[in-house]
């Protein structure tokens, strides 16, 4: 029998080694797998490369992982937020490496990793400082920049429901990076609000097929309904 369900977040992240590249889902706090991040902090893996849209908010979640000095490098599109003081401090002291990627290129590079694409030409960023030193090409009247996939060893994502095969559905805009990160990592760990019986998810509505998910851990919903407005995307 296939059973990807693991008992706790701690068990789920127990083999994330020092130096791993870890994708973390979420856009701001929507879709952020907070309990998996907390487990990773408890585990204490060091020298991580983190892929996320942002660089942490306030003092919890991704920001707490940074604060614990477990992160060597972050690949993201929008580190600066009104409450990104943890990142800001590390960055200004030169204690964290930043690879800044336009958000759509970040998404497409993650998608390319999952889809086995070797590289792709994107118009985004052409002629800007973020394309400096990159290969370019004029195709059919338009200028493009060559971008490469971002692969990961682990992805930590958050979904609404999952089953023992790892099939997932998400909730509203908390879907964001979950499906593409799931496909881009060698080992994808999903925290879900509820584990359901195999067959309870309608095959028409499964968003992430289980083939992209290696571990599922149930974390019932907390009573956190208010969005915390930060700065821009």
């Amino acid at each position: 029998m296939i059973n990807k369900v693991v008992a706790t977040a701690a068990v789920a992240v127990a083999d994330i080694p020092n130096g791993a590249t870890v994708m973390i889902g979420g856009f701001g706090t929507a879709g952020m797998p907070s309990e998996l991040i907390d487990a990773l902090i408890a585990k204490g893996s060091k020298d991580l490369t983190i892929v996320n849209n942002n660089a942490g908010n306030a003092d919890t979640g991704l920001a707490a992982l940074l604060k614990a000095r477990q992160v060597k490098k972050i690949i993201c599109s929008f580190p600066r937020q009104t409450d990104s003081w943890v990142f800001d401090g590390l960055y200004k002291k030169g204690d964290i490496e930043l690879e800044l990627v336009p958000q759509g290129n970040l998404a497409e590079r993650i998608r390319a990793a999952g889809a086995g694409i070797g590289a792709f030409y994107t118009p985004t960023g052409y002629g800007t400082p973020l394309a400096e030193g990159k290969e370019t090409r004029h195709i059919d009247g338009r200028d493009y920049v060559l971008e490469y996939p971002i692969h990961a060893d682990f992805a930590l994502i958050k979904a609404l429901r999952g089953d023992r095969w790892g099939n997932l559905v998400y909730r509203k805009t908390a879907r964001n990076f979950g499906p593409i990160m799931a496909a881009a990592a060698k080992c994808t760990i999903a925290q879900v609000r509820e584990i359901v019986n195999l067959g309870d998810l309608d095959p028409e509505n499964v968003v992430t097929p289980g083939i992209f998910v290696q571990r599922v851990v149930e974390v019932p919903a907390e009573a956190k309904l208010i969005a915390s407005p930060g700065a821009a995307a």
Partner: protein
Amino acid sequence: MKRFTRDQMAARVGRDIPNGAYVNLGIGLPTMVANHLPKDREIILHTENGLLGMGPAPEAGAEDADLINAGKQPVTTLPGASFFHHADSFAMMRGGHLDFCVLGAFQVSVTGDLANWHTGAPDAIPAVGGAMDLAIGAKRVYVMMEHLTKKGESKIVARCSYPLTGVGCVNRIFTDLAVLDVTSEGLKVLERAPELSFEELQRLTGVPLIDASAALTAEPVVTQRREHA
């Protein structure tokens, strides 16, 4: 000189968005356009974190942390909405499916180069988000900004001094002083603020302008979107 107010600017942008358009409103000033879209038009708002058919902010107490816009503020959905992941969302932009985006800017050049993500200050923490994708991704890119910096310098420039967001991507500029089109012939002034002469606008702006305001009619100048029956 009477400047257009921010509400007037937002309403002016709204007039140039036709019925049926798919639109992304950037963070900051452009967000105000949502409140000024003509009531007789059905316009579908996109937010790049994964939603088409975005509705207004929820009432107090009805916020949902899983339902936010690109500015991470709580929003709602309209009937007909759909959710999708980030790669699909940015495919909508990069693939040219959005009809309009409205962006703020630090500077726009006469050839439509846009600078809106970075002041270039050496100690600033860089952050780009979806700015570059929006700049190159919509069929028509509208910029909405104040005409002059606080020091009185024109934000419409011969060549951007700030780091670029996109090359030759801006189609129309809405400022508190004028509405201008970026064309192959140069910048065409479509409208001026009340009591502002073309000559005064030219003097304030610094780069060569073409006076096309005579061509204005009472009807908004709209761009046709991809046809549907």
